[in-house]
């Protein structure tokens, strides 16, 4: 399979690692984890080049989280130009169907084949340039988008890996198990599991409540022989940051002077916790490469 050359493999030739963020269930924080993963990879080295691709076609959240709402995608002779979240530095590229919509309230009502076509275009037509990491944010479930991704990226399969996100309650863990069965069926390596929304610290008295119970993710990782990357509590600062990074219409077209989102993100409690998760991801990636080269 790997000798097969396709427009997708040609385009992704210059991408070193492709990390797919998965979770069976919706609303567990795939997009926020994807965003954080991209931001942390970005700041891990002053030269790291990171891309983030949002294949949640009917509910794209990445533009909002990166504060890129209202931006548009430009066409160049060499394909679609992604939107850069860090302005002139151009090391954090982002692509989402959200950039292609006229109005933010527009719905994308597409059946499978159209979604498949869009994903193929995202993979083959976006001018990412050289990337160290491409983080792919997926919609919930194990359906069209996921199958299409894997299908189109089959020629670059050796560079693919995934991160599974779950919340601690049983309902979410059950879907995470389904997601795990999926990765096994399609032979997708897993870098590890992240437990999100585990606990909430009351801003008033500091008491930790387990809003969605706790520990279930770690337990599942142990049972299934997965690496547990860490747990992230509900962080209201992060929620507000990713939610409110509003860009006014005038600003939308001109690049920001500094990468404000990253600065503000670095100050949140989650950023510190994610540092640890990122180390785990880096170790897993090295292990994976060691296995590949053997």
């Amino acid at each position: 399979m790997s000798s097969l050359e396709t427009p997708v493999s040609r385009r992704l030739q210059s991408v070193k690692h492709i990390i797919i963020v998965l979770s069976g269930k919706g609303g567990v924080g795939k997009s926020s984890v994807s965003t954080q993963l991209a931001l942390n990879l970005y700041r891990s080295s002053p030269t790291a080049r990171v891309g983030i691709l949002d294949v949640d076609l009917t509910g794209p959240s990445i533009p909002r989280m990166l504060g890129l709402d209202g931006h548009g995608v430009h066409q160049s002779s060499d394909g679609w130009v992604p939107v850069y979240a860090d302005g002139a530095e151009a090391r954090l590229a982002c692509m989402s169907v959200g950039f292609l919509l006229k109005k933010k309230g527009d719905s994308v009502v597409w059946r499978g084949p159209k979604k498949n076509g869009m994903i193929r275009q995202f993979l083959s037509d976006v001018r990412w340039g050289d990337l160290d990491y491409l983080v792919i944010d997926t919609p919930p479930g194990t359906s069209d988008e996921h199958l299409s991704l894997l299908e189109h990226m089959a020629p670059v399969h050796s560079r693919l890996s995934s991160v599974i996100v779950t919340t601690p309650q049983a309902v979410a863990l059950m879907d995470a198990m389904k997601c795990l069965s999926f990765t096994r069926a399609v032979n997708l390596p897993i870098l590890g599991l992240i437990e999100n929304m585990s606990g909430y610290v009351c801003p008033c008295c500091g008491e930790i409540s387990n809003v969605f119970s706790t520990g279930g993710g770690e337990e599942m990782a142990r049972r299934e022989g997965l690496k547990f990357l860490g747990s992230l509590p509900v962080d209201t600062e992060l929620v507000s940051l990713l939610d409110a990074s509003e860009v006014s219409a005038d600003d939308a077209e001109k690049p920001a002077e500094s990468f404000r989102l990253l600065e503000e993100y670095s100050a949140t409690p989650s950023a510190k916790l994610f540092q640890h998760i990122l180390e785990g991801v880096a170790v897993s990636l090295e292990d994976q490469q060691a296995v590949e080269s053997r």
Partner: protein
Amino acid sequence: MGQTRSDDPTATADVPENAPEHCPGTESEFAGKSDACAGCENQETCASNDPKLPDPSLPFIKDRMAGVKRKILVLSGKGGVGKSTFTAQLGWAFAADEQVQTGIMDVDICGPSIPTLLGIASEQVHSSASGWSPVYVQDNLAAISVGLMLPSTSSAVMWRGPKKNGLIAQFLKDVDWGALDYLLVDTPPGTSDEHLSVVQYLKESGIDGAILITTPQEVALQDVRREIDFCRKVGIRVLGLVENMSGFVCPGCKTESQIFKPSTGGGKRLAEEMGIELLGCVPLDPRIGKSADYGVSFLDEYPESPASIAYLSIIDRIKEILGDD
């Protein structure tokens, strides 16, 4: 029933079995026109621009749905905002009246939560001469879900759209509900195959309306805005909006704080902006999630909780809007 096709997860479901290797799929715009189609026995059918014939299951669905008084969809663009939890509570609340027959249909094929929420995860659907028998939670509350058909709870259903649509059609025509007062349809997040199919299949029988669920933060509202746009495009009446997880009362100091801050005005603003009714706001209570995990009714377990009171007033309002109180 219940095969998950785990043997070949990447098979395109809209490719007929007798198709050549590089078949573009019958729903593709290249159907019948691509190079691979030359010599395929289906080429003529695919290439012809005849409008697709109406789905043969439509009359059967209409027959089956004739016995259902009210059909209500529970929608939300975003995942994890509490669609299934709300559906289950609504089901239990309707079924609290012994005279009312309620059915819950879970069309979230890839992530069915309804069986767990209703505490019937270990049950299986049986088929009989009159169709599939739904699983009964109590005398007057029945449910159908793909989760009740899988060999194990961890089996993944890796299906593309057309296969999901097929199952939804079967849910609508083959499930032997008997006479129902309410059929609640719990949907997956997004606006895609499942939603379009339910709407198309139920077009003739008529959908009484949709309840939209959101959480207060803008990331969720964005998706709900898209869902409202979808409802308008396909002509479904929006009964109203429910804001879930709005505010959290710390069990320690009883102070209410906002976990998911309504940075852009929350459900209230959205409802005003889109001209729909805000049915109510349900505060976040860790016991809701607990009850869901154990498959018990939160309303029965904690009738005194503010969340229960909010749920009940929303449910009353829904009945009022439908003219059923």
